[in-house]
């Protein structure tokens, strides 16, 4: 199978590879996939509490070239967006940007899931921080 230029570019020069401190209250971590399925993505984002803008994002991925490219692209796209804007990124956007063939669509789905999982983690942390001292609708 031939890979698209963009997949090759992300595979050869992945953006935002790395790790953020998962104990930082402003960092959300999402890990999706499973080793038996041949893909695991870990995507992390750091949110500015005031503006809700994602200031930094990092990933590491075990998976085929398309999985690596999808997660690399995802980190590139979410940086600078607000949390709510990031939630609007659809796997189909990744498919068209990277020209993924049908057998690789699951890679884009996984990347979307990773964004959602990281944001869910961030929101849960925030809720725990703000919510726990006071009753929810006092």
């Amino acid at each position, binding site marked *: 199978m031939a890979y698209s230029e963009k997949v090759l570019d992300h595979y050869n020069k992945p953006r935002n590879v790395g790790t953020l401190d998962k104990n930082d209250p402003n960092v959300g971590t999402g890990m*999706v*996939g499973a*080793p*038996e*399925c*041949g893909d*695991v993505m*870990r995507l992390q984002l750091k949110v500015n509490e005031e503006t809700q803008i994602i200031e930094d994002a990092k990933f590491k*991925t*075990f998976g085929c070239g398309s999985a690596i490219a999808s997660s690399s692209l995802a980190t590139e796209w979410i940086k600078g967006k607000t949390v709510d804007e990031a939630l609007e990124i659809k796997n189909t956007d990744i498919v068209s940007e990277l020209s993924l063939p049908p057998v690789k669509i699951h890679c884009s789905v996984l990347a979307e899931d990773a964004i959602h999982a990281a944001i869910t983690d961030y929101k849960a942390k925030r809720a725990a921080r703000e919510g726990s001292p006071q009753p929810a609708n006092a």
Partner: protein
Amino acid sequence: MQTPIYMDNHATTPVDPRVLEAMLPYFTKVFGNAASRNHSFGWEAEKAVDNARKQIADLIGATPKEIIFTSGATESNNLAIKGVAEMYAERGNHIITSATEHKAVLDTCKRLEKQGCRVTYLPVQRDGRIDLEMLEEAITDKTILISIMYANNEIGVIQPIAEIGKLAHARKILFHTDAVQATGKVPVNVQTDNIDLLSLSGHKIYGPKGVGALYVRRKNPRVQIAAQMDGGGHERGMRSGTLNVTGIVGLGKACELCNQEMPAESKRLAYLRDKLKEGILSQLDECYINGSMEHRLPHNINISFAYVEGESLLMGINDVAVSSGSACTSATLEPSYVLKALGVGEDLAHTSIRFGIGRFNTEEEVDYVIKRVVETVMRLRELSPLYDMAKEGIDLSKVSWAAD
């Protein structure tokens, strides 16, 4: 040294220039039909075919009359197994084979199951070899055929062929072996190994594609098979169709060369393979060899590179042609059934690479492949969350993965 480097010699091999040279006259000058009995064109073609029969027979310890030409090993396997099942249907309907056979054997057996045969698929042990006791226990009074491959195409593991042959003959059961990967690479002898039917193929031994042979024993016992194609009754009625004279000449020459060069060639290939293995293993941790090292083809190595998915590794070493047991590289999206049969976990099956070193690979190429594999695995492990976790001491088998 030129790139890309071809190191996937279990998939196919290039035609040896000496084989090509032997074939060329038979396209345009000696183009007769080997079945034409009444002119020199036919006689010349028949002479060439007979010569090839002898070259092949000599390689495997057979006699020329026991060699039946086919279009390749897929056909040879089909003809052997279906041909025996049909011919010996009165005697029994049970066939024993193994889980790591090539699809040409497995799917043939599956079809026969639909037609009323019973098939036992023996599991293999962790090293890839069948358990002889299990084989013996699987035999019933209805067993007519044991079909076990000589050497596996993914992991290069060699089965205990002589022991299987002995057992089969003691129980008066026919023994077929798919010897595609073994013939020409290791000494194969149908007499000492008690083999009744043997499949081989041209394109795995530096001969042309689309030609192969089936050895069918004529004495002790005389094996009969029912033809699976109707036609002019060529090959003593077992396989109709005008003989592919050029291909057959090529196959014969390829066998002759293997026969002459095997002692030196297998030593050289084993040296290169061991160098490749050591070169990789000495520089990378957490690499796992799949299958027995003791009972193995000299030119094969199959390694799982933990935490690095196979297709991404192939993409990284894109100037080296090898293959992977990863699901992403297979049409079925399932990781290798051969590795699964060995008990290799799916996580490690996804990270496996098969290297098949061939006649035309050089030491310089092996050095280059070592370098490319090592640097690419290191780079991809830097990218792998699994490698991170393993380094932190997390037991990955205990993690509950959020898989969809």
